[in-house]
C-alpha cells in the first residue's frame, strides 16, 4: 500500500514537472498554456475610423458600460483614424484633443495609428500620444530621433482571467513610402512595409495565448496579409482604413477579420474562446449599431455638449479690409488659399465650389470658411502643361454650366462661340505675358474637379490629404489681413 502511494505521488510530481517544463516555451511554435483547466474567453469591442465623430460618444459610452457589466475582461480598442472630420475637434485650440479626452473618459485600452493621426502634425501628434491614457500601437514606424512620442509596436495584456493577449499595430504605407497624409506631417518618421513587418511579430505566440493584429491597411489588404501568413499564425485582425462594414464572419486562412465601417455608426463585439492548452478554438463577431439614438451616458453627453459649444469656430482668424460682393471675388480668395496650401504655381476653384457670394468687411471666422467651402473636398495636385490646362478650362466651362474656373497664379481669357461654348481659352501670367503652353506647371484643384473633369492629360495627380477648407483656415490665420478683391479681375469672357 505504502509503495503504491509513493509511486502515485512520484508519478504526479513527474507529470506536474513535465507540464511546467513544457509551459516555459522550449519550442518556438508552442503556445503559452493557460494556467487553469477551464476554457477562458476574450471579449473585445472594436471601433475604427471614428474621425472625431464625438456626437455618438454618449451612446457608445452607455454600450461600453453595459458590455463591461457582462464581460468584466472587455477590451475597448480603436483601429485608428480617431482624428479629422469634425471642425469642432479639428479646429480646437489643442487640435484633436476633444476625441482623445472622450476616449480617455471611456477608458479605451489601445488604439492603432491611422494615417489621419498624423494630421495634427508631429508636435500635435506627440502631444496627443502623451495626453492619451491608452497606448498607440504601430510596429512599422519609427518616430523622429529625440522625439517624445508615446508609441509602441505591440502590447501584451494579461487579462484578469489570466489570458495573455498580444496586440500588434500595422499601418498602410503608400507608393511614396509614407502613410496617406501630407509629407510635411511625417517629417522625421521612417516607415517599413507592413506586410514584411508583420512576419517579425509572429513569435509573440510564445508569450501569449491570443495574437491580434490591429491593422490600419484596408480590408482587402487585411485579406492579402492573412493569406500570406502561415495558417492560424494569428487569431484575429481588427481592421480599419477602408470604412468597410463587415457584418458576417470573414475568415481567411483561419484568421477572423473585422471592421466596423466608420464614424461610430457601428462597433464590433468579438469573442474568442481559449482552451486550457492556449489554443483559440472559437471566434465570433457581431456588428453592433452605435449611432446616436438610444440610452446614453449623461456625463459624456455633458462633455460632448461643452466641446460643441466651444466658441472656437466663431473666433476671428483674419480681418477683411473690404466687402466681398460676388462669388467671383470669394472664388479668387479661395483659389489663392488653395495655391498657398498646395504650394502650387497655379490653382483653380470651380464655381460650384463657392457657396457664398457676399462676405462683409471685418472678421472672418472658421465658420465663414466652412460656409464658403462646405463640401469636405481635399486638395489634389497635378503636373499639367499649358495645353492641358486649357483643355481643362474648356471642358469645365461647359460642365459647370457656362461659368469659368476661378484661377490663382494666372489669368484667363475665354473666347465664346455662337453656341455659347468656350472655343478657346488664352492663358496669361499676372504681368499679362502669354503663358508658356509647352511648360509643365504644378496645378492645385479639389478632388471633385479631379474626378469629374474629363480632359486629356498625362499626370493622374496626387492627393495631398489636406481638406481645402482647413487649408484656407491656415492661409487666413497666416495672412491675418485680407486686402480688397473688389478690383481683382483674372477672368475675361469675350463673346464672338
Amino acid at each position: 500500500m505504502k509503495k503504491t502511494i509513493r509511486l502515485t505521488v512520484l508519478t504526479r510530481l513527474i507529470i506536474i514537472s513535465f507540464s511546467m517544463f513544457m509551459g516555459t516555451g522550449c519550442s518556438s511554435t508552442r503556445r503559452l498554456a493557460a494556467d487553469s483547466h477551464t476554457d477562458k474567453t476574450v471579449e473585445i469591442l472594436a471601433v475604427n475610423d471614428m474621425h472625431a465623430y464625438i456626437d455618438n460618444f454618449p451612446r457608445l459610452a452607455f454600450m461600453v458600460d453595459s458590455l463591461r457589466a457582462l464581460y468584466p475582461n472587455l477590451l475597448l480598442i480603436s483601429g485608428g483614424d480617431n482624428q479629422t472630420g469634425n471642425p469642432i475637434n479639428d479646429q480646437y485650440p489643442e487640435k484633436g484633443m476633444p476625441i482623445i479626452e472622450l476616449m480617455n473618459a471611456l477608458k479605451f485600452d489601445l488604439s492603432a495609428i491611422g494615417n489621419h493621426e498624423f494630421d495634427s502634425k508631429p508636435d500635435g501628434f506627440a502631444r496627443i500620444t502623451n495626453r492619451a491614457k491608452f497606448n498607440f500601437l504601430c510596429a512599422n514606424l519609427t518616430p523622429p530621433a529625440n522625439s517624445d512620442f508615446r508609441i509602441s509596436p505591440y502590447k501584451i495584456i494579461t487579462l484578469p482571467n489570466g489570458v495573455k493577449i498580444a496586440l500588434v499595430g500595422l499601418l498602410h504605407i503608400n507608393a511614396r513610402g509614407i502613410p496617406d497624409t501630407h509629407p510635411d506631417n511625417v517629417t522625421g518618421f521612417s516607415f517599413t512595409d507592413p506586410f514584411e513587418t508583420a512576419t517579425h511579430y509572429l513569435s509573440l505566440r510564445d508569450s501569449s495565448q491570443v495574437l491580434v493584429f490591429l491593422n490600419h491597411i484596408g480590408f482587402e489588404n487585411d485579406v492579402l496579409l492573412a493569406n500570406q501568413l502561415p495558417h492560424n499564425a494569428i487569431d484575429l485582425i481588427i481592421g480599419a482604413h477602408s470604412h468597410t462594414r463587415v457584418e458576417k464572419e470573414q475568415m481567411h486562412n483561419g484568421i477572423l477579420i473585422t471592421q466596423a465601417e466608420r464614424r461610430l455608426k457601428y462597433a464590433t463585439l468579438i469573442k474568442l474562446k481559449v482552451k486550457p492548452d492556449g489554443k483559440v478554438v472559437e471566434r465570433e463577431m457581431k456588428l453592433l449599431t452605435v449611432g446616436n439614438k438610444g440610452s446614453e451616458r449623461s456625463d459624456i453627453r455633458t462633455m460632448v455638449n461643452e466641446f460643441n459649444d466651444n466658441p472656437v469656430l466663431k473666433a476671428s482668424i483674419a480681418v477683411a479690409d473690404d466687402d466681398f460682393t460676388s462669388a467671383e471675388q470669394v472664388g479668387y480668395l479661395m483659389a489663392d488659399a488653395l495655391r498657398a496650401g498646395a504650394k502650387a504655381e497655379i490653382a483653380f476653384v470651380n464655381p460650384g465650389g463657392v457657396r457664398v457670394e457676399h462676405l462683409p468687411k471685418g472678421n472672418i471666422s472658421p465658420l465663414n470658411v466652412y460656409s464658403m467651402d462646405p463640401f469636405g473636398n481635399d486638395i489634389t495636385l497635378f503636373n499639367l502643361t499649358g495645353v492641358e490646362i486649357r483643355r481643362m478650362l474648356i471642358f469645365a466651362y461647359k460642365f459647370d454650366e457656362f461659368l469659368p474656373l476661378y484661377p490663382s497664379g494666372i489669368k484667363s481669357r475665354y473666347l465664346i462661340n455662337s453656341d455659347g461654348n468656350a472655343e478657346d481659352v488664352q492663358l496669361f501670367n499676372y504681368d499679362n505675358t502669354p503663358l508658356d503652353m509647352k511648360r509643365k506647371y504644378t496645378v492645385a484643384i479639389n478632388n471633385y474637379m479631379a474626378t469629374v473633369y474629363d480632359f486629356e492629360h498625362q499626370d493622374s495627380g496626387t492627393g495631398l490629404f489636406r481638406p481645402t477648407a482647413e487649408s484656407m483656415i491656415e492661409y487666413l490665420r497666416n495672412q491675418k489681413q485680407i486686402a480688397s478683391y473688389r478690383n481683382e479681375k483674372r477672368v475675361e469672357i469675350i463673346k464672338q
Partner: protein
Amino acid sequence: MKIKVNNTQLEIFDGATVLDALRVYHKHRKRKFPKVLPTIYDVYGNKVAPDGELTEGNALFIKRKNKSRLPASEP
C-alpha cells in the same frame, strides 16, 4: 493608382476615396452620376462607405438591378 470598379480598371490619384472612384467610373462610362448614391461593395461582399480610403488594387462593385454573385469568404 490603379483600382477597379465593376471590373473596369481605372487610373485615379493617390488618396482617392470610394466616391472619387465612382465619379471616375461614371465619367469613364460616359454616364451621368446617379442622384442617389448606389450601394457599394468590395469583392468579399462587404458594404463600403463612400468616404472609404482606397489603396492600390482595390476592387469595388456597384449594386445593379440584376444582382451578380460576389465571391464569399471561407465557409
